[in-house]
């Protein structure tokens, strides 16, 4: 080989730069010292020092989801790697491209229970798309390039590269990325034309069609959202989105029925239940979406577009599976629709929209306004109203009631602007994710809509936010409870609020100030708008502590184990029936 010898750490950095990486989130430690020494000596790659490794992975997820690029993490061996596990699992469940480098004890010590040794590849095998332990420095560059390829292609996901310290310090040759395909890993990108033709014929014959779209559209890139919009508009069919899919179709559009699922809208869920042709684009029939499987959309013929063959027929048997990348498939689908001169059944469609109109008039998101306490839904609505003129608003959330209210009341017009932990439901996701988004978009408005319980799970990242002067806005809907858990206790466990009251909360205003941020508080409805205004007008990080109605519940709701047409609503149905079977599914 003609190129000169480099040490392992230099090879890692060179590979990262060749992969287009500009920022990495990490935390140093003994096993990765050589790599941190190389980071010190260069200026191309910016390292963001988090306060706990879990924060690094969520930050990388936020970075990845808001840019479409791979998020990169660097942590040390042992506890560094084990702290990253939650984030990796989160990224796996939500199909987020992340490459996580973990330090490892030197190869000759592996298996010796050495200091800060953990079986990282063993621990992360089930929570990554793939992982590598590099045992030969001459594999190092190839493995890194492969890791990026695996993370970003097909159904994206997290990839771990475990780097023993002697590999980082050894000498070897660098190999640039190659265009040669992988020997065994080859995701299917193009959809089968015959299947697409079948799907188009089915779509055109539909009387009560529905587009059900998910995170796969967002992962496929902005082009996929554009094509989806064209297809939905061209057909005139209604469209609903999953929690992961919000933003894939403009929320303000009249063909949009809102989010579906457990806390989705009445019209979306009933349309799912009653449709005769379902067009699933990049969604995976998650249990929070389907409700009771035996009664899930019983009368529909189902088309399912997914890049992951294992998503097909996993929970719900489908009639026309199309394996491929959403953008590629939609492009073909649009072309076939045009060449076949397909026409929707205008008469049937009119009746279908009439029916949907009736459901819409149920006004399922309605909540009782209050002049004394701030309703959490109202707080989010006001936040949305105050930010909607801003072209580039990124919203992250933690997990719980506030997350569902954000999904219901914040309207997303574009993909990649909504970052939430969907599959794993990781409390503590939103703050570090917002940090990652803000690193990628320094000028944009980034708001973490949080709950007072979740925010405490990764509150240490306020320190990172201070260090990098990130103007992240933390909008806490503070109800002094783990609200969603409390809601379930109310519905299922006789109102016995076991361990869900958040006692001894910090003073969030003082806490903000302690971290060099601005602290604001609203306790009455008449203070809300001015606090929001002040928050948005501040060019520093802000924690806005919004004291909301303590006992407000998130409705509408399909109780676990119920069907789409068995929804509960705010005023009438509180404390509705949940089957034994449903209790298990919580």
């Amino acid at each position, binding site marked *: 080989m003609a190129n000169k010898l480099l040490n392992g750490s230099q090879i890692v950095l060179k590979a990262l730069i060749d992969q287009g990486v500009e920022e990495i989130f990490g935390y140093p430690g003994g096993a990765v010292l050589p790599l941190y020494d190389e980071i010190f000596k260069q200026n191309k790659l910016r390292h963001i020092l988090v306060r706990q490794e879990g924060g690094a992975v969520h930050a990388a997820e936020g970075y990845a989801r808001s840019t479409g690029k791979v998020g990169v993490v660097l942590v040390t061996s042992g506890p560094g790697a084990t702290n990253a596990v939650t984030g990796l699992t989160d990224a796996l469940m939500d199909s987020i491209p992340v490459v996580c480098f973990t330090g490892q004890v030197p190869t000759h010590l592996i298996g010796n229970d050495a200091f800060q040794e953990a079986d990282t*590849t*063993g621990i992360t*095998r*089930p929570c990554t*798309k*793939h992982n590598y*332990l590099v*045992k030969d420095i001459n594999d190092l560059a190839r493995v890194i390039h492969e890791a990026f390829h*695996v993370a970003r292609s097909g159904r994206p996901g997290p990839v771990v590269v475990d780097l023993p310290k002697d590999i980082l310090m050894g000498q070897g040759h660098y190999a640039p990325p190659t265009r040669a395909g*992988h*020997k*065994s*890993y080859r995701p299917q990108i193009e959809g089968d034309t015959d299947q697409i033709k079948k799907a188009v014929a089915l779509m055109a014959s539909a009387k009560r069609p529905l587009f059900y779209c998910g995170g796969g559209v967002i992962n496929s890139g902005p082009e996929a959202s554009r094509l989806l919009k064209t297809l939905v508009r061209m057909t005139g069919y209604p469209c609903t989105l999953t929690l992961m899919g919000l933003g894939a179709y403009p929320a303000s559009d009249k063909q949009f029925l809102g989010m579906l699922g457990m806390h989705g809208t009445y019209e979306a869920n009933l349309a799912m239940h009653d449709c005769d042709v379902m067009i699933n684009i990049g969604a995976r029939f998650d249990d929070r979406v389907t409700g009771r499987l*035996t009664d899930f959309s019983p009368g529909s013929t189902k088309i399912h577009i997914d890049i*992951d*063959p*294992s998503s*097909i*027929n*996993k929970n719900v*048997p489908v009639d026309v599976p199309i394996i491929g990348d959403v953008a590629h498939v939609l492009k073909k689908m649009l072309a076939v629709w045009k060449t076949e001169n397909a026409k929707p059944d205008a008469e049937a469609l009119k009746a279908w929209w009439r029916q949907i109109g009736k459901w819409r008039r149920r006004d399922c998101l309605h909540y009782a306004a209050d002049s004394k306490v701030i309703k959490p839904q109202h707080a989010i609505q006001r936040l949305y109203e105050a930010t909607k003129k801003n072209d580039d608003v990124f919203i992250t959330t933690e997990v719980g009631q506030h997350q569902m209210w954000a999904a219901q009341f914040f309207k997303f017009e574009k993909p990649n602007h909504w970052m939430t932990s969907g599959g794993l439901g990781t409390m503590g996701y939103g703050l570090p994710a917002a940090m990652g988004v803000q690193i990628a978009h320094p000028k944009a408005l980034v708001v973490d809509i949080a709950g007072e319980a979740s925010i405490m799970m990764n509150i240490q990242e306020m320190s990172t936010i201070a260090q990098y002067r990130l103007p992240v806005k933390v909008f806490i809907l503070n109800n002094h409870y783990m609200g969603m858990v409390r809601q379930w206790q109310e519905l299922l466990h006789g109102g016995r609020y076991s361990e869900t009251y958040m006692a001894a909360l910090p003073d969030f205003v003082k806490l903000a100030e302690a971290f060099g941020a601005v602290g604001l508080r609203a306790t009455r409805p008449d203070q809300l708008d001015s606090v929001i205004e002040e928050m948005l007008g501040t060019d520093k990080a802000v924690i806005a502590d919004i004291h909301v109605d303590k006992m407000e519940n998130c409705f509408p709701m399909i109780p676990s184990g119920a069907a789409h047409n068995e929804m509960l609503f705010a005023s009438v149905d509180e404390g509705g029936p949940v089957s034994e079977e449903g209790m298990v599914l919580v």
Partner: protein
Amino acid sequence: MNPQSEQAKQHTISVLVDNEAGVLARVVGLFSGRGYNIESLTVAEVDPENARSRITIVTSGTPMIIEQIKAQLKRLVPVHKVSDLTTDGPHVSRELALIKVIGSDEKRVESLRIADIFRARAVDSTDKSFVFEIVGDTGKVDAFIKLMEKIGLAEVSRTGVVAIARGSEGI
């Protein structure tokens, strides 16, 4: 249609993988992590030049579960090919078992007689024991072991199923 109500059936699945560290753990972890059964598992390198191993798994499930198992296996990065021998056409499957039988006098003679019928070979012998080697499909090995139970079965070691499709087509 209730997918759960469909009948579970046994399938023999061949998986061609890169012979690299952790690949077996990936496959086994997939089965345990998702709650699938492994009834038999064999693995060995079959193509040293390309460092490929062949894993043969006998599992059971409804058609939906089996389809899911195959899709999940194909998703693993070091997996080259997955073939469901049970559905892809006729196949041959074999196991090898070593069976230790202890007994004397008439039982000893009887064990040799049965071994002869099953074309099992005695590969070790002492004055009170035999070790038989038997090759055959799972049913044949099971039947032989059952007969030996009455005679003085002491210990069994089985390879698990290896299988290959009939005809000229490769995996």
